[in-house]
């Protein structure tokens, strides 16, 4: 049996509880942890819950700020942040999206965590509370370091008003409710025929989601021509460390990474050209 389940009532209380007990288990929506609790793996542990901590919100003010406890179901309703609703709706099933949260998805072990590529492509930042107060970090950096360490609380994801066009692609063995083989998000913005800048992010292939700087560089300053796309795809394929799991081998993951990266770039470029 779990020793205690403490539901924080505010973000501040949550941050305080977590900072005060780094041994405690922090639980968001419960989709990852509740099956462990059922199997007795949290017996004797103190669990700090965020469900009532006031972190379930979406605020719009040019930029979009999303509380870490916002359910994916609510994210699926945000129509005007490109790629975001599409990515949220591609995850799990409707009842699962009622419980699963933005923060939980960012912290979920691969192949789960489909939001990250889109958020990376949108230059998202995260806000984290820790013993030294709050800090803000670009998501790309945070993923490298681990979004929230022991004693830390992921509070919020911020998405700046995004220029350009986004394409999100998710490859899975089954159309609905299937673990991803690869998830790709691409954002490009153009000035006339020239792509000014690009974001290329890939998830579900390897140990963590990543931005592919080489692919972004290949596209930036190009016209989205075949040569640039070939170079971007090659950079993406080189960047991923594909893994085997129950639904796909590393070999297939690499093949699908190349295919879906190409398709995503082509779609984003086409959309940006209108």
């Amino acid at each position: 049996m779990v020793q205690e389940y403490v539901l924080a009532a505010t973000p501040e209380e949550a941050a305080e509880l977590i900072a005060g007990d780094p041994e405690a288990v922090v639980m968001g929506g419960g989709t990852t942890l509740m099956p462990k609790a059922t199997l007795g793996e949290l017996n004797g542990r103190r669990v700090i819950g965020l469900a009532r901590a006031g972190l379930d919100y979406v605020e719009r003010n040019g930029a979009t700020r999303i509380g870490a406890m916002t359910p994916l179901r609510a994210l699926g309703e945000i129509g005007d942040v490109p790629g975001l609703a599409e990515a949220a709706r591609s995850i799990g099933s409707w009842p699962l999206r009622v419980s699963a949260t933005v923060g939980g998805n960012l912290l979920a072990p691969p192949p789960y965590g489909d939001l990250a590529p889109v958020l990376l492509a949108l230059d998202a930042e995260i806000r984290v509370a820790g013993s030294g107060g709050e800090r803000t970090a670009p998501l790309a950096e945070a993923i490298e370091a681990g979004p929230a360490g022991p004693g830390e609380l992921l509070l919020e994801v911020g998405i700046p008003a995004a220029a350009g066009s986004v394409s999100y692609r998710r490859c899975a063995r089954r159309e609905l409710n299937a673990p991803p083989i690869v998830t790709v998000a691409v954002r490009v913005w153009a000035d006339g025929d020239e792509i000014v800048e690009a974001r290329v992010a890939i998830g579900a292939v390897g140990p963590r989601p990543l931005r592919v700087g080489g692919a972004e560089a290949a596209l930036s300053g190009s016209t989205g021509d075949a040569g640039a796309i070939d170079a971007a795809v090659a950079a993406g394929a080189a960047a991923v460390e594909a893994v085997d799991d129950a639904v796909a081998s590393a070999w297939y993951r690499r093949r699908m990474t190349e295919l879906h990266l190409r398709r995503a770039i082509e779609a984003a470029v086409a959309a940006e050209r209108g």
Partner: protein
Amino acid sequence: MSAEPGRRAGGGNGKPFDVVGRTHERREARGHVTGSTVYIDDVSYPRMCHMKAVRSPVPHARVNGIDFSEAEKVPGYVTGLTADDVPKNVYTILCLIGVEPDEENVLAEERVRYVGEPIAVVVCETEEAAFEAAAKVKLDLEELPAVFDVEEALESDAPIVTHWGTNYFVYEGHHCRRVRYGDAPAAREQADRVISGRYQLSPIEHAPVEPTGCIAKPEADGRVTVHTNTQAIFFSLDNTAIILQCPPHKLRFVGGTVGGGFGGKVDVIVEPLATLAAMKTGRPIKYVYTREEEMQVSSTRSASRLYVTDGVNDDGTIVSREVTTYHDAGAYSRHSPYGCTKHAANAAGPYTIPNVSVDVHCVYTNRTPSSAMRGFGVTEASFALEMQMDRVARELGVDPWELRLRHAYRNGDDRPYRKTTEDATLVETIQAAAELAGVELSAELRAMSSDDRAGKGVAG
């Protein structure tokens, strides 16, 4: 044994009342859709305890020690069982119909032979305590080389899975189940060409939405009532009595409402241990598989491998068929000896081929044991042979419909197992499928029937 002929053959008695042959509502449906149907998981008793297994994390190892000391400290711990507690710990599930030898450990003794093999069970007041206690039982295992491939398992230097020294089941002195009809090797030698194929199935899981499980409840009169979702009440009861070496009349098995079976709930895995613990503790015991156990520990369908070699003449006649099947029983044979026999009977397919030779090897490996699953024995044959029929058709340039219809067995034909066919209907079934799919068969093929084997057939 049966009523007088004529009052039962082919159709009840007298004139029909039209109850048979008409759609009637499913009797349980109202309960199903309102959530009021009672499955075993819905049965509960005061003071009921929960049982969980301590399982092998490795495919093949010597068991040098089991240490319950940390598990016993888990709040709510009641008891633990090992092989020493099981009266007849070595058995085989088909012993009821005379299959030998006994080879499966109810709880592992000196060796574990597959990942997930139960080594001990713990009983606790709550389910989460039982999970925790099971995780805290310390195992001293010495890993041994393992074999996962059916053909590698039969090589002379393969790690040996069984306790008798070879990795195959013995059928009346033979290393495989055989069927011999005509002279297939000789006919192949004479044939215009030889067409061969290798076909491989994957191990798969029954995946009923209701997990396998039972509740064993001691009664005041000294009997034990077992609520179980077995597919076979007396089969489970009798095997439990054998394992526990208790008089069968001490047991009452209650069930009948099963949340999906597909062959996965005829293995008698949960009932003996839950019943044993109920007898030992005097408390009701619930033992239900987790989904992970259902997926990775419960029996699979065999990963069978088939080699099919046909002797074929250029006129499109298959004159010989030789089938060698390696049926992967996994670590223990369970229902595989029967499945291999069923497979042997069907391994030439629903076709009349004058020379047939079948060898079905029931092979032990360090995989999860395979057992019965919807169609086992036959599914494997159907998959391989229907791909083989297409291979023959492609190589000969013959229409696949024609190849099947020409060879489809007819009334009066002998099957390779020497039974004369009396109610064949394959020809008619193929013709109906062609029509449904909008395939125009030639007049010759349309004229065929299951009774058209002139001079041989029994009257239709």
